[in-house]
């Protein structure tokens, strides 16, 4: 029997999730929900999927095994809560919630109800970042000294834009939208941040939200490093996320396409030479059955479906991990207020 899935929110991410879910061999995408009539009209005309304006009606009418929630961040809390109470497994878009009080409640509810819970931090499913995590764990560059986590892109290109992403009450802004990805990577690959210092949140083109975030993070293992994120940098064609990690025995620079390793001495066990070794995504990408915009988007849904099928909670991007990212966002906001620029 195929799993029955639904998608709430058909913006850029939701529609892409719907396409990927729709091609999964173990799934029937039975229902989608959105409040924008133009999108529902397209589905009505060209597909057989059942359509809803109201997510509560969708949960009441459909006997779903899982739901993908890709609405503005403010709506994650009520929707995820409703799904969990209906005993539906949830894949939620990032960032998880508007604050950690909401997130904690959802995380506990998911665990209490024994439901598979995952948040869409898709970088964790990019082959290069997985390889970076493995290499850091294996200690190839020795004791860590410093890190830089960066993301740049050109999402905001003029002062006129106005979707939910430029509204702080909806969970918009560069810190929530862009920086959350980098924080999550730092947290899962290097260590959990416990303190933010020297935070700068800068408005460049937006009026109500930050367009750039710079902050110094200290991790639970004592290591410190820098977060640098800007989403109105036109020198980038699309979002570019990278981590640079300096160790006593070398350095690694990693982004979605390549991982560059510099070692002071060779590492025979890893087959790494002294000096530079470059590994490419062509060798590291996770194979998928359907590709839309990147293997990682399919790989994360494949993983979520597999966890449901095996009734085994994910170790990648659980609510608990995403909740921690929300907590780091709170640390950064709190520090920026202290710095009197938030």
């Amino acid at each position, binding site marked *: 029997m195929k799993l029955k899935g639904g998608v709430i929110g058909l913006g850029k991410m939701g529609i892409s999730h719907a396409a990927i879910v729709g091609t999964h061999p173990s799934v029937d995408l039975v229902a989608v929900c959105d409040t924008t009539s133009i999108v529902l009209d397209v589905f009505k005309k060209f597909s057989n999927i059942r359509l809803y304006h109201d997510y509560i009606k969708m949960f009441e009418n459909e006997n779903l095994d899982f739901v993908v929630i890709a609405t503005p961040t403010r709506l994650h809390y009520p929707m995820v809560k409703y799904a969990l109470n209906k005993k539906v497994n949830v894949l939620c878009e990032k960032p998880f919630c508007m604050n950690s009080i909401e997130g904690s409640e959802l995380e506990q509810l998911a665990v209490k109800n024994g439901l598979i819970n995952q948040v869409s931090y898709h970088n964790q499913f990019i082959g290069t970042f997985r390889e970076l995590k493995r290499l850091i764990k294996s200690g190839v560059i020795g004791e860590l000294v410093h890190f830089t986590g960066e993301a740049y892109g050109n999402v905001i290109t003029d002062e006129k834009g106005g979707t939910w992403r430029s509204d702080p009450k909806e969970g918009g802004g560069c810190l929530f939208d862009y920086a959350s990805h980098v924080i999550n990577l730092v947290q899962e690959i290097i260590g959990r941040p416990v303190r933010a210092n020297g935070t700068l949140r800068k408005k460049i083109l937006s009026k109500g939200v930050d367009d750039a975030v710079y902050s110094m993070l200290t991790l639970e293992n004592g290591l410190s490093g820098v977060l640098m994120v800007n989403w109105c940098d036109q020198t980038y064609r699309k979002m*570019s996320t990278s981590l640079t990690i300096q160790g006593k025995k070398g350095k690694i620079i990693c982004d*979605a396409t390549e991982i560059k390793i510099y070692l002071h001495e060779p590492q025979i066990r890893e087959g790494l030479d002294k000096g530079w070794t470059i590994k490419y995504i062509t060798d590291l*990408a996770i194979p998928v059955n359907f590709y839309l915009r990147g293997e990682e988007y399919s790989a994360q849904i494949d993983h979520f479906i597999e966890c449901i099928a095996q009734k085994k909670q994910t170790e990648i991007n659980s609510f608990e991990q995403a909740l921690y990212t929300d907590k780091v966002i709170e640390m950064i906001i709190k520090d920026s207020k202290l710095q009197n620029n938030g």
Partner: protein
Amino acid sequence: MDKVLFGDNQFFAVSHMSDEKSRQQAIRFKDDNSIINVLDQARCVGINTFMCTTHERISNICDHIRANKEKYEGYKIYPCMPYAHKFANAVTEYGYIGTIKKYIPGNLLGSFAKGGLAFVRKDFISLMELLVDAEMKMFKGIDTPVIFLQNVLVDLILGLKMITVFKEYDHYIRKRYNAEPGYITMNMPAMYDALSSVGINNPIICSSINKLGFRMSGGKEIYEKYLAEKQFRPIAMQVLAAGALKPKEAIEYLGKLPRIESVLFGASSRNHIQETKELIEKYMA
């Protein structure tokens, strides 16, 4: 179609292998003349088809071609629409309706027979036609015998199983532009099946085909099976697997798949262009 089609990724900082290389490309191809020079070098070695996205800078290249008609006699462009990032970023920044307003010229929308945007909401086929026309505007007066839908849009429609959209596209491209519709996809076998299911026979499908199996969704074996058994006009792209394969090894592999009609590749230097073209002629004659 010509055996060799010249691509445009290198001009617009698209590298599937390295963000650093992307930046170098962006610097090198800052001026339109630097693009035109490379296109001319490719023409010198006999490559007369340029397959390119509807990136805004392509309109400058089109101006140059129109202004030098004799020089570009017989030169063909295969447009690929839409330039995905342009639309994806616009949806993020302006929403769906805002994007439609931004990319359909006001006069086109305003003169729309039955009442502008309100009508567009219900008539998606007309909307699609308007968007195609808006993207095709820059190619006016240039020979565009094949017009492609880009992979992000193709694969989105494919995933959502809205297959009749392809049929409408197919119909419109033939009727309005007297051209052959083409489809770029990262999911070739599924796309072939989808097109067959709505009666589109012998379609032009451009997909990743390389010895490494890179970006060949579902695996290399099923691609090879479709290339051997199904009736369609395959174009191979990403043949070097984003640079992971050496040209000789890469093209030798394609030579074992005789149904491949054309190879799409891009390069920035005359030597690379010539080398790849000669390999294609040697192994895929």
